[in-house]
C-alpha cells in the first residue's frame, strides 16, 4: 500500500505546533526544515481505509495551512 511524501506549510508562527501535531500521528514521519517554514511529511499506510482516515486527520490540523504532495510509491506486495 502507498507511501507518500508531502511538503506541509504551517500558518505563520505555528511551525513548532504543526511539527508536534504531525509527529504524534503514527503513520507519519516529519522532517522540519531548519531555516524555512516548511516540513517534509512522509506517510505510510497499509489499507485504503487507513489512508482516508489519515488524510482527514491531517487536514483537520489547525496549524496546517497547505499540504502539497510530492511523490507516491505504490509498493507491490511481493518479496
Amino acid at each position, binding site marked *: 500500500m502507498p507511501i507518500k511524501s508531502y511538503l506541509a506549510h504551517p500558518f505563520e508562527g505555528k511551525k513548532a505546533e504543526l511539527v508536534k501535531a504531525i509527529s504524534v500521528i503514527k503513520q507519519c514521519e516529519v522532517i522540519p526544515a531548519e531555516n524555512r517554514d516548511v516540513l517534509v511529511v512522509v506517510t505510510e499506510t497499509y489499507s485504503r481505509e487507513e489512508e482516508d482516515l489519515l488524510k482527514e486527520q491531517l487536514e483537520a490540523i489547525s496549524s496546517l495551512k497547505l499540504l502539497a504532495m510530492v511523490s*507516491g510509491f505504490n*509498493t507491490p506486495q511481493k518479496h
Partner: protein
Amino acid sequence: MYTSITSRRSFIKKMATLSAITAAATMFPGILFADEQERGLPTNGNLDWKKAPCRFCGVGCGVLVGIEDGKAVAVKGDPKSSVNKGLCCVKGYHSVMAMYGTDRLTKPLVKKNGTYVETSMKEALDLIASKMKETIDAHGKDAVSIYGSGQWTIPDGYVASKLFKGCIGTNNVEANARLCMASAVTGFMTSFGIDEPMGCYDDIDHADVFFLWGNNMAEMHPVLFSRILDQRLKRGVKIIDFATRTTRTSMAADKSILFRPQTDLAVANAICYEIINNGWVNQSFVEKHCNFNKGLTNMGYGLEDNYSFTDKPEKISFEDYKNFLEDYTPEKVEKISGVSAKDIKYMASFYGDPNKKVMSVWCMGMNQHSRGTWINNLVYNIHLLTGKISTPGNSPFSLTGQPSACGTVREVGTLTHKLPHGVVMNEEHRKFAAEIWDVPVENIPSKPTYHTVEMFRALDRGDIRFMWIQVTNPMVTMPKLKRYRDATKKEGRFIVVSDIYPTPTTDIADVILPSAMWIEREGMYGNSERRTQYFEQMVEPPGEAMSDTWQLVEVAKRLGFEKQFYYNEETHIEEIYNEYRRHHDNKKHNMAPLEVLKEESGVLWPYVDGKSTKWRFNAKYDPACSNGEDFHFYGKPDGKAVIWQRPYEPAAEEPDDEYPFWLNTGRVVEHWHTGSMTRRIPVLHKAMPHAYVELNPGDAERLQIKTGDNVLLTTRRGKITLPASVNERGVPTPNQVFVPFFDENMLINDITLDSFCPISKEPDYKKCAVKVEKA
C-alpha cells in the same frame, strides 16, 4: 535478490523523503534540513527513474516515473521541471496505476452479428482500411471522418491530419478540444491574430493579484493552485474567485464573488467602464498597440442543423467604445449580474492600479459559454486597456484541461479549419502544408466541413458514414447525447474506436482497437504555457495494444499512401516530429529540436536561438517582435491587438416557469474527465464513486431535499435521477444545480443542450434550464 517487505518499505520511505527534500530545495533555494536527516538517503535504489509530462491535465507537470521489472510503480514530481518544481497532485500520482486496470483492452475486437469477436491487429486494420475505401467510393471523401483528442500525442494528431486532410482530401478532422478550448482559440485569434497565451507559468511568481474567472483551480489545476498559495505564503498575493458556484477554490481565496450565470459578460464590460471612467487607461499603450472593433450581435446559438455564422468585424473609435460602455455602469450591471456595484469597483480597482501586477486565469467557465469568444475578448480588453499584458506577472491566462489540447489540437491543428501552419481557407497555407506532406495542393479542400457538434449531426443525417474515434469518449461527453448516441447506431454507419478500456463509446463501435497508453509508447505533449514535453517508451503495452500513431500509419499504408507514410517503426516518432517542425519553422512558432526535448523538462515555443520565449509580443523577451517598439502584436497585420465591443446577451436557454433552475456541469478532482481511467483506480473510485447533484442550501430546504435524497432533474431533452449533495463540496448560487459529468451510469449529458458559441462552435455545458424535484 530476496528483499524483505520491511526493509523494502523502509528503503522506499527514504526515497519518498528524498523526493520531498529535493522538491523543497527547488521551491526554497538555500533550505536546510538537519544533517542526520539527509544522511543515508538513497539516490536511486533499484528503480529506474525516467522523465515524462504527466498523463492527466493541461498543467503539464514534469514527473519522474519509477520503473521496476518492466512495470511503472512510482511517480514523483520532477524537481527540474519549472512547471511543478517537484510537486505532484493525487491524479498525477495515480497516473501509473491507470495503466494496470484489470479490464485493459489487449486485443482488437470486431462486431459480428451483434457480438464482439477477438481478431488479430492485422485483420482489424485491413478491415478498417477496406471500410474506409468502400465508404469513400460509395459516398465520397467527406463521408469519412476522424474524431481525436487533446490527449492525442503530437505525432498522433499530426498523422491523423496528414492522412485525412492531405492524403484522403477531407477536412473531416475534429478533436474533443473543440468541447473545451475552441473559445480560447477564437478569443486569441480575434484579439491577437495568433493562438495561445502570451505569458507562462512564471507569471505566478510575479503577479500580485490573481483573478480566477469561473475557474475551480484548486480541483482542476491543483499544482498551479498550490503554486499560487505558496506565493500567498511568501509574498501575500491576493486571490479573487469570481464564479457561479462556491468551491474549494472559493474557500481558499481571499474573496469570493458570485455572479448569475452568463452575466460575466456584463461584469467584464463594467470593469472596463470603471477603468475608463477613473482614468486608469494606459493611454500610450492603447494608442500605440490597440485597435477598437465591433462585430455582429444576436448571433443565435447554433441549435439548428447546418447553422452557420461569420462575424463581420468593423473598426470603431475609442469614443464609440466609451459610449457603448455607458450601458455597463457598475450600478446597471449589479441588476443584471447580482454582483454588487461595490464588488465590481473592487475588482476594477486592482486592474486599474498601476502598481499591481494582475493575472487573470480561466478555463471551462469562460470557454464552455454560448458567448465564449466574447468573454475571452472582454477579459483581454481589461488587460489591453491597462497595458497589463505580456510582462512578467501581468497576464491574461487561458488554462487548458487536457495534457495536449495545446500541443496537438491547437498547434498541429486537428480541427476542421486548421492546418499545422495556418488554415485551410488560405491558399498559401495549403500550398505550404501540401509541399511538406508531399501531396498535390488540390488534395486539401479549401472549405472547412464540420465542427464537432455538426460532425455528429452529420453522422445522424447520414452525411458522414465512417468515424474513427481515438483517445476520447464522446458517448459520455457530447451535449444532448441521446441524439448522437442514436446516430451511431443507425444502419450504414461504421465506427472505429481506439481506447485502452471499455467505455460507452467502445460500446457503439464496430471495431475496437486496443491502444498503447502514455509511456507504453513514445511521444510528446504540449501544455497550457506553450511547453512541449517529450517522453520515451518506458514499458511494453499489454497484448496487441498499439500506439494511436502507428494504427493510423498502418491504415494510411493500406490506403495506398506508402510514399507519404514512409516512417520506420523504430524511428517513426522522431521522423514525424522532425517533419512536423518544418511547418513551424519561423520565429513566431519555432519548435525545439528533439535532442533538446529529450534533454530538458520541456521547452516553450517559439524556441529561437537555443532559447524558450517566456513572454510573447514583448520585444525584451520575444525575438519575433520587429516593429522597433516595446510591444508588437505581430499576429495582426498592423501589429495591433484588438479591443472588442461585445455586449451582454442571454444564454440559449434560461430558467423559466416550467424549468426554473440553471443546470451547470463540470469535473471533480478525483476523476479524469469521463472517469474511464480513474474509475478503475480503487482509491479514486472509492473517494468519488458516483455522480450527484449539488443544490443551494436555500433551494434544498424549500424543496425539502437532504443530502443523499434522490432528485429528479428534467430538461426539454429528458430526465435523470441523482442523489443530492447539499453543503458538501460545492455550493451553487440559488436557482442553480451542478452535476459532474464523469459517471457513465448517470449520464448528465443526456439532458444538456447542444447550443454553442457561434464563433468558436464550443458547446455551453454550463447553462441550460432544468426542473428540480424530489424523486
